[in-house]
């Protein structure tokens, strides 16, 4: 230790990130949980971050060392999480909710190898009423759970919580929120021997946000019901938030802990692995975690997505739960490291997805129709031939995707660009369009077929 440096020690929770900032705004040191280091005398700013909450405070390293300087948050770092914990507040309501979440999660008759999906929706008494239009379906749209009809609540007229526990065979299920034209949907994976726990809470409206409880859902997995006292709970939430905000410091620390300790929370591993993968680094730690996840939850699409580009082609028919998985699948579909099965639900996902959430959420009405896409090259040629006159006769019933594709193709064919593009032109095929739009080849094929069909109808109508 240099004579001019003094040891410091950070005393923060396991799910707290700490950053030490110098007077010139450089981040000198960072870590997660408890860690220590050395600093020269001076005044520094320390930033503690837990979930969505950040707290800053100053501290001084004295010129004359008087022992280890201990840094800890001077205020509790509380943030809103959909997972009910005693830390969320010490009110009677929150205590009842925590107890209910735990007790009702254990009402399952699944076998050791069976699986269960547990939905728990709760709110503060002063929050808006719960919207219980939550339903669970199989992939082929058989209803298996309806919160409005079958949930257990504390108060039927004005519940502060509602719980629904459904024993299901392992597989993928569709969780829908809303009614009529206003239905949002995501996938929930049920794994053999596990209960998948989905915690929801009504979202406050913020500037520019259109709240839906699905967007801020916390999804965990457990073998013996929900345990609010499990210390890994906070880490799982920290990992989910790290994924939402693309923070890698937390993820790397969590992965290290998962490798060193008993690995009992697949969702924590999935969150941390995805956040770390999103940073672009291929850490050897990631490989160890993936091997464990594949043995714990075989066939999980969010685990399979992390293997894209590192081995054999990955087959996808079921959409994953995470948006980051879908981004990997989209990119992989362009170079054949992923094959999306024709006619599968994954092939029908729209290009327009619900933003502001780590989950893969889409509007049910935007799902692409099941089409025989036929010869996409021929359809593209047909569209290109029609473009010269079609600009004046654009079909009025185009979907958002078809209209965007139409505009793109019209622009490419305009005289302003063709002269510059001549020397650069590459064949325009479904992959090039998928790359241009950042979507899957399957989605492009569907859109091209749809657009070609509608242009054909427009031409027929015009000639009649």
């Amino acid at each position: 230790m240099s004579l001019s440096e003094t040891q410091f020690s950070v005393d923060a929770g396991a799910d707290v990130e700490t950053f030490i900032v110098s007077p010139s705004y450089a981040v000198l040191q960072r870590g997660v949980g408890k860690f220590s280091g050395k600093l020269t005398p001076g005044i520094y700013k320390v930033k503690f971050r837990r979930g969505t909450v950040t707290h800053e405070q100053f501290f001084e390293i004295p010129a004359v060392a008087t022992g280890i300087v201990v840094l800890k948050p001077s205020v509790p770092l509380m943030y809103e999480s959909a997972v009910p914990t005693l830390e969320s507040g010490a009110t009677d309501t929150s205590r009842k909710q925590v107890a209910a979440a735990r007790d009702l999660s254990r009402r399952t008759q699944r076998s050791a190898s069976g699986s269960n999906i547990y939905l728990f929706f709760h709110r503060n008494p002063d929050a808006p009423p719960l919207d219980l239009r939550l339903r669970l379906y199989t992939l082929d749209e058989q209803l298996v759970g309806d919160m409005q009809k079958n949930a257990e609540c504390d108060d039927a007229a004005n519940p502060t919580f509602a719980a629904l526990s459904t024993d299901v065979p392992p597989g993928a299920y569709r969780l829908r929120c809303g009614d009529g034209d206003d239905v949002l949907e995501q996938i929930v994976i049920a794994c053999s021997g596990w209960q998948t726990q989905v915690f929801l809470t009504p979202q406050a409206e913020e500037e520019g946000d259109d709240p839906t409880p699905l967007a801020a859902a916390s999804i965990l997995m457990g073998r013996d019901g929900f345990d609010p006292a499990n210390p890994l709970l906070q880490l799982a939430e920290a990992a989910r938030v790290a994924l939402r905000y693309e923070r890698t410091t937390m993820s790397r620390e969590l992965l290290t802990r998962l490798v060193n300790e008993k690995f009992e929370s697949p969702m924590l591993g999935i969150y941390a692995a995805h956040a770390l993968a999103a940073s672009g680094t291929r850490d050897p730690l990631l490989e160890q975690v993936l091997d464990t996840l594949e043995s714990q939850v075989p066939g999980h699409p969010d685990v399979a997505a992390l293997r894209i580009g590192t081995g054999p082609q990955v087959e996808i028919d079921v959409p994953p739960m995470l948006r980051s998985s879908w981004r990997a699948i989209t990119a992989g579909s362009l170079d054949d490291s992923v094959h999306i099965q024709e006619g599968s639900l994954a092939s029908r996902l729209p290009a327009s997805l619900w933003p502001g959430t780590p989950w893969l959420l889409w509007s049910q009405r935007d799902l692409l129709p099941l089409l025989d896409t036929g010869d996409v090259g021929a359809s593209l040629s047909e569209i290109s031939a029609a473009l010269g006159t079609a600009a004046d006769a654009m079909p009025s019933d185009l979907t958002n995707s078809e209209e965007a594709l139409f505009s793109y193709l019209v622009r490419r064919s305009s005289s302003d660009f063709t002269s510059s593009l001549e020397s650069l032109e590459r064949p325009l095929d479904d992959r090039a369009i998928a790359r241009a739009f950042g979507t899957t080849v399957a989605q492009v094929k569907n859109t091209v077929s749809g657009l070609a069909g509608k242009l054909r109808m427009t031409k027929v109508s015009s000639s009649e």
Partner: protein
Amino acid sequence: MAHEDHAFVVGINTYPDLGSLGGPANDALDFREWLLAPDGGNVPRDNVHLFVSPAYAQVPPVLDADPRAEQIEKKFLELLSQLQQSGVKARRLYLYLAGHGFSKEVDEAALLMANAAKGMSTILHIPGRAYANRWAKTAFFDEVVLFMDCCREDFKMTQPRPPVFDDISGNAAAETFFGFAAKWSRASREGPWGPSQQMRGIFTLGLLAGLRGGATRDANGQVSHISLADFVYNYVAKSAVNLTPNEKAQEPQFTPSNLMHAWKFNAPNGEAAENAAVIAPAGAGGVDLAVPPAFYVLTVHTNNGTTYQLTDGKAQIPPNVQAAGTYTWHLPQGYYKLLRSDGAMAWVEAGGMKETLDVPL
């Protein structure tokens, strides 16, 4: 070599439909000034393409407002064609975009053009990150830098406008460094600044203050991407005060493509003098240049005979002015502790865009 650098700088104030802004054109002009400075970006003037809102006497009809996407894309294609024909690989491409913006994806950010309107934004924008990535893949540059001082609020129904030139993947893609004024789905802010109290984006103020001396420099006088990112993040955090209830703080986001790549900003020591005669800055068009303040002013008033002491943790700092009942310090950026003779204490942070410090003591 800076003479192999190119830049596109866009700043849009006038939005007939979306509501005009005060800062982006000023920010763009200032950023261009840094690009042209011999000790800054050191980019040849002919290589810097500027697109800012014209000084309209009256707000034009929305469909007539400039600048537009196709104008910028045409310049993109001209440069692309020029580079392809010359066969020479350039060093760095800068893309600077300021104005109204949105994001559909967590890793995207788009600048809305002057002729964008509510319900009419699908093709009336420049997708910044998509273009930066596309330029990187052309392999005509070693490095591509994208700075966007725009909101990244989510427009759910807007389809992204794809880049107008193809994904010409061939040789290894360029390294990329992206800096966004705000995280995804969050707004960026502007405020009055400088002697003229012109509207300026807080992110661009921090960016340029960092580049012009605020951020830690290495022995060659250059700023690394890490010190720049750290400086801008903390500058914005210090400057973005008076948030409304429920408003989240603005948090800039910086993303290098490769953590191991050593990004350097500003011309190295010596190169400025060498090129000063060749590259003459165009002038910032009446814009106050964003530079870190020479000092921040802390003034406290005494009463009842109380006295004050200020320290930076290493030594006591005597006041610059001590008159009856008043202490005034001129402080460089940093953290300080203010002690009053009755035992009261307050931490003081000298930093950010506001030069006068307020201390609740």
